[in-house]
């Protein structure tokens, strides 16, 4: 009884496998179901023998599977066979799990028979998701850190409209406190009060917009608008450092698919770095310029340059490495995270010395990257 012996050996082999192994005939009827498959799907082998493989699939996958099977049986041209594909597998209790399915045809069998290997992808998928979430979280935290570094200037900027409101209100009070008050003058002042309140609200709104968004959402955007939205906050930060902030934005740039909050984080980070570098020097006029332009290859380039001393040659090669910081309170994550963000957009973040002095960081964003988004 050598045949029985070899079939027992085969069953032992199948049962020892970690992945689920299922054999079906040309109609999709289950011929064999190993122990791992029992564990994965929650069925006993004898319950399934002779039943159609589609019970192990979601409705969408089942329809697709029937089509693949019919096509192969008809044409004998393999489409899936020999290649794996990601499917959603259905357990006995109707719960689903992500699975990697590899299919092979049994050689010489006629009508054809197929062996399917089912690998449970749950853990891998989870760690992928987890990794992704951690990265998003890190970017968000680093964005908050940058906003935090700018808080001093922002607080000062918020104080301006508040002081103006208080002063206007005091003035109104005094203007009305005379026998024949000039109502028109008071009205003008009241309008100013309202305007200043809106100005204060605007600053807070922009701050919230930056701090809140955690999930990544990409949309076709105008890079200039993305930069303009930062103006109030960056201006506040610049003023706190005694630095002139200028924008030099090229007109008619193509739309870029990007995550607004992330690109703003990159620009903010680069500008804040420049401001801190300038604060160390003793220049008469300190300035940071943010430029946008269209490159010859059709990419959109954002550059942040300053007229400070530039990046020290000793750290030029290391500054994009994590934890390489020259600032006593720096995390050393600003530049590496910025570069990660830009690369995730299919772009590049690079440094070159600015002419005649200072540092210049360029963010290049490819205009045609709708597919990779």
């Amino acid at each position, binding site marked *: 009884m050598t045949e029985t012996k070899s079939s027992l050996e085969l069953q032992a082999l199948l049962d020892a496998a970690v992945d689920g192994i299922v054999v079906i005939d040309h109609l999709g009827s289950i011929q064999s179901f190993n122990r791992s498959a029992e564990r994965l799907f929650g069925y006993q082998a004898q319950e399934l023998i002779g039943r159609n493989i589609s019970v192990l699939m979601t409705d969408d996958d089942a329809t697709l599977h029937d089509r693949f099977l019919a096509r192969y049986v008809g044409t004998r041209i393999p489409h899936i066979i020999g290649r794996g594909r990601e499917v959603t597998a259905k357990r006995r209790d109707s719960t689903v799990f992500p699975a990697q399915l590899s299919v092979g045809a049994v050689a010489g069998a006629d009508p054809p028979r197929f062996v399917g290997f089912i690998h449970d992808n749950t853990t891998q998928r989870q760690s992928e998701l987890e990794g992704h979430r951690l990265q998003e979280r890190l970017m968000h935290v680093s964005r908050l850190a940058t906003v935090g570094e700018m808080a001093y200037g922002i607080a000062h900027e918020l104080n301006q409209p508040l002081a103006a409101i208080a002063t206007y209100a005091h003035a109104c009070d*005094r203007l009305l406190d005379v026998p024949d008050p000039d109502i028109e003058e008071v009205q003008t002042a009241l309008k100013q009060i309202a305007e200043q309140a809106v100005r204060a609200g605007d600053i807070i709104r922009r701050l919230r917009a930056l701090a809140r968004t955690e999930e990544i959402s990409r949309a076709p955007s105008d890079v200039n608008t993305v930069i303009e939205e930062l103006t109030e906050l960056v201006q506040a930060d610049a003023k706190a450092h005694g630095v002139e902030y200028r924008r030099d934005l090229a007109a008619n740039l193509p739309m870029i698919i990007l995550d607004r909050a992330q690109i703003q984080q990159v620009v903010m980070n680069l500008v804040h770095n420049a401001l801190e570098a300038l604060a160390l020097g003793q220049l008469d006029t300190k300035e940071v310029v943010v430029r946008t332009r269209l490159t010859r290859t059709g990419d959109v380039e954002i550059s942040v340059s300053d007229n400070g001393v530039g990046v020290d040659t000793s750290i030029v090669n290391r500054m994009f490495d994590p934890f390489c910081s020259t600032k006593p309170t720096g995390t050393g994550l600003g530049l590496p995270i910025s570069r990660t963000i830009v690369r995730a957009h299919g772009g590049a973040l690079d440094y070159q010395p600015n002419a005649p002095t200072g540092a210049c960081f360029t963010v290049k964003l490819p205009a045609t990257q709708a597919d990779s988004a």
Partner: protein
Amino acid sequence: MKERVPTVFIVDDDEAIRNSLRLLLKSVGLAAATLPTAQEFLASYDPQQPGCLILDVRMPGMSGLELQEQLNVRGAIIPVIFITGHGDIPMAVEAMQQGAFDFLQKPFRDQDLIDRIQRALAKDKTNRAELAQRSRVRENFGSLTPREREVLDLVTSGKPNKIMAADLGVSQRTVEIHRARVMEKMHASSLAQLVRMMMDLSEGTQPGR
């Protein structure tokens, strides 16, 4: 000499702050002039114009502290009230050390600012009066003849007429005539007043701000 109306100069880069301050000052009947930058203030600065200066510490370009330094270099006597944002205390301290009249944190109570302005204007008036007095004394001193100056030196160092006469080799009567001329030209009513005038003149320092 016609007396000029004191002006409160406001230098702040924030338009809303400038305009609100100007309105507040107008509401209490004070003349104000506003300027958006320190450079513009310096360019139009007239040392003869009485008043005081309200200055934002933190401005792009020339900062408030730098303007104060420039004014110090020029020997300006205009009292400076700094207005600062939150957390600018170290700057305020530096401003005070550099001779600022006072400082205020934004936002402030109107009465606090107005009180400080009134005090600054009073201080400016005293300073200007002292300066005017000193320049009158200097002018009077300039009108003395060489002989009268010799007499003034001896009088203020406490020499009696007899000794002076001997020192100068003239009669006591001549000394008395010179002495009377000195008192008259210097507009001094007593020896004590004359001595004080000469001390003020030799000090020659700026009155404090």
